[in-house]
């Protein structure tokens, strides 16, 4: 008998004595922990910053300048640019070198950072989710360089985890990012950046205020 059959047989024997359907699964938990009246974008910005990530809020017109300021702040110059990233969002000027995909891992390793879009944000947990869609790149792109600048539109921000999971396609490769890489393995002292990017900067694009 194969191990597959043996394990399944043992499982069936083990549960044979139990009622076919245990009590139904209660789903009394909240769909969202966003306090009524609280603005999701507001909370998202606050919670992302709680992880010691940098957060900037801007409108579409202010985006190139916000990107330029973010990059200048860290002196990040050579950046990976994923397929499908709208180049009109990028700041003008020759201070920055944009390295387009395809990039090998050693090539990525020589860059200073990566600029990506995102698929979904989660306000309550301060999480951004990348699904390798247009403008987000392969998973390696936001991982290997030491700096990740992530741009997310306000309407992509879900209130909470249940809503966010429902917006995602699980068959795509997904990366949930909540702050920069961090460890607390040495005397519980939090240190940012071990293997993933040490610096995470999130820019939120909100519709223009009239």
């Amino acid at each position: 008998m194969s191990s597959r059959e043996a394990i399944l047989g043992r499982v069936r024997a083990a549960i044979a004595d139990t009622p076919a359907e245990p009590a139904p699964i209660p789903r009394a938990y909240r769909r969202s922990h966003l306090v009524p009246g609280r603005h999701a974008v507001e909370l998202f910005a606050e919670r992302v910053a709680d992880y010691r990530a940098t957060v900037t809020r801007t409108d579409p017109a202010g985006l190139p300048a916000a990107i330029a300021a973010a990059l200048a702040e860290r002196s990040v110059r050579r950046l990976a640019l994923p397929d499908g990233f709208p180049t009109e969002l990028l700041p003008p000027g020759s201070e920055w070198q944009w390295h387009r995909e395809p990039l090998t891992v050693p090539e990525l390793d020589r860059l200073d950072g990566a600029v990506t879009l995102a698929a979904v944000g989660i306000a309550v947990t301060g999480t951004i989710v990348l699904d390798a869609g247009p403008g987000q790149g392969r998973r390696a792109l936001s991982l290997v360089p030491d700096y990740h600048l992530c741009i997310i539109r306000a309407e992509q921000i879900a209130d909470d985890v249940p809503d966010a999971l429902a917006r995602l396609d699980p068959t795509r490769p997904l990366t949930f990012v909540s702050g920069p890489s961090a460890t607390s393995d040495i005397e519980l002292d939090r240190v940012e950046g071990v293997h993933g990017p040490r610096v995470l900067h999130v820019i939120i694009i909100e519709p223009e205020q009239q």
Partner: protein
Amino acid sequence: MTNDRGVVWLDTPAFPEAARTALADTQLRANLKRATSTIRDKRLTVAAELDDWEQLRESAAAIKQHTARHLDRYLVQLEEAVTAAGGTVHWAADAAEANRIVTELVQATGESEVVKVKSMATQEIGLNEHLAEHGITAYETDLAELIVQLGDDRPSHILVPAIHKNRTEIRDLFRAEMGHWGQPAPEDLTDEPRELAEAARRHLRQKFLTAKVAVSGANFACADTGTVLVVESEGNGRMCLTLPETLITVMGIEKVLPTWSDLEVFLQLLPRSSTGERMNPYTSAWTGVTEGDGPSAFHLVLLDNGRTDTLADPVGRQTLGCIRCSACLNVCPVFERTGGHAYGSVYPGPIGAVLTPQLVGVEQAASLPFASTLCGACYDACPVKINIPEVLAHLRAKVVEAKDGHTVEGLAMKAAGKVLDSPRLLGAAQKAAALGGRALARDGKIGRLPGPLHGWTDTRDTPAPPAESFRTWWRKNREGGSS
């Protein structure tokens, strides 16, 4: 060591002796106390942010119970979904089979090195040692696991495996050992955590960028979509899961969930219970293979290794709901004083005290069900509501049953005495326990205990530990008494 079912567990020495040694180590106790109380406080704060925490726990427990009831169906569904997405599923009845499967998969790639994501399942089966016997070097890439591996040591905590080491010890270890495994530590390395983390980054960088094969565990796998998840902090997980060409994931069969949307419960409970964060820095989710992104070959090894035996036990099966968050460790008065090594198992603390004897058989880890005060704090902390005290009491009865020829009560007391013989352990533990939960107690009494211990509790109610120090009770009732 390995038992006759191929389950690895260390049990050297048995808990009472190991605990005594641990208690003498003041450094260890200070580190542990600080760590557990810090994480405990953080956990309480972020759990309190969710005013439906109890409902989430109820749902989590019910989902796990439902999954266990239909485990055969969900495993087959998971296999189909993973296969349809381009992965390959393997079934491993025990540690030996899992080790053989992984070793052969690595050998088929022609590689002799693998990078590893921290994983309890691969520790449980002793994979690294097995690979080493076959000429394959496994590099642990989680910072704490790296510290443990460089020190030829063992993890002492599920979440922070190297918490028993302080920064100076880690600095000395890096200086002495890193060079034997790869990039050496800088000459002038100080004991600043930031510098130590940087040394680890440099040490492992080349491995990540060149490794062709990675081995991981899994936190969850969704049967409906075939999606597998790994939850982590440092990015070493992402490195291992996405850069190599071949990914081999070893997963206990109990990790399957019915649907992708069930994650909405567990992704809220796990980080908050584990590190006391709203969300851990990185979670990776993948479904089979994706052209042009990540490994081109994905193997999922489904591991039994004693889990179906655990499933067969009506009281013990709830243990399979464990999501390895380690919250029960951080609230346990016994763990806080002994540390993880004393449990002689890769699963320490309250969860180890119930899981290990079930995986390897109670007769093989007879002291572990007694490594507890039954204070109930673990049950209160557990995000999936595993009634650890209930399972402990049940397993104690089994230990007693396993040794025939004596009265049930006499043997239970004798076995308990082994642990209770450690006066400092108990004295200290009971003080904390008195503040702990009263999960089992009603009106200050522990009512009927499940299983064969009915014979004991039917005749008298057992005083609940919080009402009176168990040790005081023990003295009053036992010492100088009839035994």
